[in-house]
């Protein structure tokens, strides 16, 4: 009998709500003895999320975001800046205790396992996907997913982006590419290092099809059954509390 984990399926929310939900699930996991949880979700309006340690000025073209109606949020996790395109991106998150037998204790090994589940899901769509340390998943040689993990409240929280049909031109309008990263290369070359499912497969692909593939990847890799569920009352309360933090300028502009 496979262990059952909770699936919170494809909630569409704004940036502060999404980040609050991820942290609320992490915070409540041991307190309420909740099941381990996998979430798939989309961001409306589209948003840029930056890593905990990133400089907002350096990473984000704030004016472009304003012009395009794109939200900006700082994550609780480290890592890089991500453009969450409402029309072309799925984010996942996973919460499980740090000492859970299915989650490797070593950080690199745990990224490898969780990103491996995503990669396995993408393989089901015919994509040559693989985890690429430090925290990426590549399709062939191009980045198709970025991932970020934190460990607190006694749990591992990992979330990440899967580019389905993201507008890569807009992505590079709202994100600033560090000079040092594009040294000796044209921006075009940088853009060519990123792809999405539609571009890679060269066919239309729906969120539904992507979702099914990702869930299959999680279930097979972790040997679990996913059962659709909702947030608990306590988790919803935490979301309301955390929302204030995530939507405050003090939080978003702290670095």
């Amino acid at each position: 009998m496979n262990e059952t984990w909770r699936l919170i399926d494809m909630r569409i929310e704004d940036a502060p709500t999404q980040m609050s939900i991820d942290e609320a699930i992490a915070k409540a996991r041991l307190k309420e003895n909740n099941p381990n949880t996998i979430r798939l979700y989309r961001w409306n309006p589209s948003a840029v999320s930056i890593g905990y340690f990133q400089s907002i000025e350096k990473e984000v073209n704030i004016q472009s975001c304003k012009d395009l109606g794109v939200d900006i949020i700082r994550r609780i996790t480290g890592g890089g800046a991500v453009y969450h395109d409402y029309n072309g991106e799925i984010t996942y998150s996973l919460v499980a205790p740090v000492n859970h037998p299915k989650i490797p204790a070593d950080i690199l090994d745990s990224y490898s396992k969780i990103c491996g589940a995503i990669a396995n899901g993408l393989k089901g769509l015919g994509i040559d996907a693989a985890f690429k340390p430090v925290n990426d998943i590549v399709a062939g040689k191009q980045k198709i997913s970025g991932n970020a993990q934190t460990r607190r409240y006694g749990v591992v929280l990992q979330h990440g982006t899967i580019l389905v049909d993201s507008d890569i031109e807009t992505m590079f309008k709202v994100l600033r590419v560090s000079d040092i990263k594009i040294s000796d290369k044209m921006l075009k070359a940088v853009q060519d290092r990123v792809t999405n499912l539609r571009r890679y497969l060269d066919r239309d692909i729906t969120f539904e099809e992507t979702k099914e593939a990702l869930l299959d990847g999680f279930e097979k890799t972790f040997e679990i059954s996913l059962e659709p569920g909702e947030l608990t009352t306590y988790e919803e309360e935490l979301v309301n509390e955390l929302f204030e933090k995530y939507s405050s300028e003090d939080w978003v502009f702290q670095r």
Partner: protein
Amino acid sequence: MKKAEYKIPGGKLIAVELKISKNIIEYVKISGDFFMHPEESILDLEKQLKGVKTEDFPRYIDEFFVDRDIILYGINPKDFKQVIKMALDN
């Protein structure tokens, strides 16, 4: 303001901004796309470096990571030293 940016071998980026007055670090802000758990310990590291003589900063970084339960991923203590050294040399 002294600034530097350093691409860590393996892909992550670290940047620093320093204000130096009379050979003393008065202000330090570290940023980048690395991982450090718990994340808030970056504030403690910045605090630790404030008021330190510029020639002494490597020792303070070494001391900071001893006796603390901090996990670094995609970065090492020597990368913090490297980027601060680069900023001081700028």
